[in-house]
């Protein structure tokens, strides 16, 4: 292991910090923009002013969130060049133009129409405004698509050959549709929707609990519940599929996630560890609580299916174990907790417990929805830890090592920028919380007249 202060470790820490911070914001931009599309469509269709007020209220939160997403996103694109120059040269042929596509197809669309969405209420007709909101939503989801294509390709780099330290594309479509891509894209896009569903639902629950604008927020709460009924089970299924893809294409990563050291002999099933203490020097777990046959069953759909253990891979090709193992378990627990919360809520609704006069008494349910807001973000972040730490020691799976991919420069330069990020980002976070709290405390404006030429009114 390198020393703590060398340029590679510092660049890795900087990337980890900036990426984990950045991803907090686009997830809500993606999901909330779709929510805004739904609300604006409902307004145009029904002419009910309540939906219009929902658009105005949530778009204020959207804009503050979007702002932090943008300013923390630009450093992501440039960091590949500044801190990962050898990777940029090796992977640029594919990776670079995916980022280029993202900017040209998605981000530009989003940035331009956002201006109309935010400042254009009185300048354009409701239809053009609705179109702008749709373009913002389309742009943000397309952006997620291209970024996840690029990221998936780092996990399963297909569609070309690696010669003289450079990846040369021979088949563009095979690179774009790499084996991990369908899972990477869908798992992350669903995560965006799921988090946004719980943010909208959780904030609505908070207002209902406080007895403020109960009828108003019951509307958004119920929309969130309906979305959760679709999204939470779907995400578990996609997560399972994603795990199978890891089993097929990144066996060392799967073994690390499961702290699975020894390949199960034919006829015997691999157990699933609920909790364990992996020990890399001993190449075994110090202790573990296991469910027999479960790992084979989950990954191969057969109780005795073979699952390769970590010992089959040379020590220098093994990813860290402790971090992916626990991060994965936290993510999975969150996924199921959100699923059970959905079941509980759906049952309550079925029994009439979500009626305006009864929902106030469902304090525990509402509190659970509020708690689900940070929980859903924790699920996403631990998912990313599982995914990216599990990819180590490779930056480009089985082709280029992370340690060979960092720019060679004085540690003091990277240390300086890392320190600046470490000061700036918590400050940004605190400012966001401050402004978000103000917007939430103020609540939706009571009497906002819709634009003069409003349709349906």
């Amino acid at each position, binding site marked *: 292991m390198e020393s703590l202060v060398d340029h590679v470790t510092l660049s890795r820490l900087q990337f980890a910090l900036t990426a984990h911070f950045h991803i907090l914001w686009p997830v809500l931009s993606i999901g909330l923009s779709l929510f805004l599309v739904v609300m604006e469509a409902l307004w145009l269709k029904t002419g009910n002013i309540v939906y219009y007020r929902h658009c*105005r209220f949530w*778009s*204020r939160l959207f804009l*503050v969130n979007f*702002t*932090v997403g*943008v*300013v*923390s996103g*630009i450093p992501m*694109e*440039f960091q*590949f*060049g*500044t801190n990962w*120059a*050898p990777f*940029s*040269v090796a992977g*640029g*042929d*594919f*990776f*670079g*133009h995916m*980022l*280029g*596509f993202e*900017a*040209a*197809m998605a*981000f*530009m*669309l989003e*940035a*331009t129409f*956002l*201006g*109309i969405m*935010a400042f254009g*209420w*009185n*300048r*354009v007709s409701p239809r053009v405004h609705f179109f702008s909101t749709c373009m913002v939503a389309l742009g943000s989801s397309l952006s997620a698509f291209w970024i996840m294509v690029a990221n998936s390709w780092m996990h399963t780099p297909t569609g070309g050959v690696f010669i003289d330290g450079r990846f*040369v*594309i*021979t088949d*563009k479509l095979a690179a774009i549709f790499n084996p991990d891509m369908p899972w990477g894209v869908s798992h992350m896009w669903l995560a965006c929707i799921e988090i946004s569903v719980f943010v909208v639902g959780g904030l609505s629950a908070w207002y209902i609990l406080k007895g403020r604008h109960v009828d108003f927020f019951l509307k958004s709460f119920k929309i969130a519940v309906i979305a959760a009924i679709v999204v939470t089970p779907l995400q578990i299924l996609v997560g399972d599929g994603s795990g199978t893809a890891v089993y097929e294409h990144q066996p060392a990563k799967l073994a690390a996630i499961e702290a699975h050291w020894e390949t199960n002999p034919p006829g015997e099933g691999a157990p699933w560890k609920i909790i364990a203490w992996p020990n890399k020097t001993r190449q075994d777990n110090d202790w573990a609580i296991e469910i027999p046959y479960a790992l084979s069953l989950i990954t191969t759909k057969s109780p005795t299916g073979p699952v390769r253990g970590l010992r089959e891979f040379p020590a220098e090709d093994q990813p860290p174990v402790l971090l992916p193992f626990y991060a994965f378990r936290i993510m999975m627990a969150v996924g199921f907790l959100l699923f059970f919360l959905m079941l509980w809520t759906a049952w309550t609704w079925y029994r009439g417990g979500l009626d305006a006069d009864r929902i106030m008494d469902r304090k525990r349910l509402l509190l659970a929805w509020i708690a689900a807001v940070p929980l859903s973000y924790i699920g996403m972040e631990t998912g990313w830890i599982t995914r990216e730490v599990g990819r180590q020691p490779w930056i480009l799976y089985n082709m280029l090592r992370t340690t060979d991919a960092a*720019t*060679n*420069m004085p540690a003091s*330069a990277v240390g300086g*920028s890392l320190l*600046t990020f470490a000061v*700036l980002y918590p400050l*940004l976070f605190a*400012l966001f919380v401050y*402004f978000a709290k103000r*917007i939430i405390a103020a609540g939706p404006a009571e009497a*906002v007249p819709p634009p003069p030429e409003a349709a349906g009114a």
Partner: protein
Amino acid sequence: MGLIEPYLPDIWLFIIGFFLLYYAVADGYGLGVGILSLFARDEEERSIMMESIESTWHDNQTWLVLLGGMLFGAFPLFYSLVLSSLYIPILLMLFGLIFRGISFEFRSNSDEKRTWSLSFGFGSLIVTIAQGFALGGLLSGLPVKDGVFAGSVWGWLNPFSVLVTAGVLGGYVMLGSNYLILKTHDEIQQRSYRISLLSSIITLVVSVTVHLRIVAMYPHAAGKWTHPPDCYAVWAFVLLAGIAFVLLLVSLEQRREIAPLFCNMGIILFSFVGMSVAMYPYMIPNVIASPLTVHSVAASPDTLWFMLVVVMVLIPLILTYTGYKHRLFRGKTTESGYESERGHG
């Protein structure tokens, strides 16, 4: 494809040049307005200045993201070499962009308007200075050995790059004041006429000095000024830039409102093209080892071709919708500005 293939890197150089130019002009006036806002009389003036670009600064800035992504894809070696060797100015630019980027949204939600106006002003100043040093560092030449930067992390800091930074500062202030002439009236507009004149003259003097220094540093660039047929192109663009400059002075004198900004764009376009012709085919000038040409830093022909097809569809589309938006938000900014139409939901 066979006929075009050998020229793909050149076509891409042209496209990247267009992105850079669009960014420098569009975000240039935004950054210029930001720097000028630091010298505003009061918060009301700062407010008008910020509102003049409020609805469009973000997509203008996005051309930088587009430039970064396309540069990464089309010229991966150039992208990695330039960004890694100019680490400090590039990171400084990113930090500046953070302060500038948050200022608009936070200001509209805050009671402390002044704090966020200053965040906008100083953020813009930091971004401009960082871009100046990055450009100055690149034009000073980057020592490259075996495809890796072999110079110092402070190599971009030298008297020449300070001069280039002064030029970029002057150029953005010039653009910003010409934009304010178009978008405001009364006090701010009158002052902008004076600032535009002053910054134009400073920028002219600095640019001429920078060009002379480049000719002195790079024999190959000097050759372009003297040897036909390249010298015809170089001199033609210098002449065009000169004409645009004279027209700018005339339009300022006549107190025109739209013409100064367009003359300013002309100056930048012609001097940028002239400078590019003088530098071609070198993308990274280098006084020590051999410089890197357009062709040596480009991605594989397949990638360039694929990207070209996609971009040829996207650029007209982007120009259409950004053009529509600029039309939508045309007109003067006043105290009531866009603020009154903003509403609060």
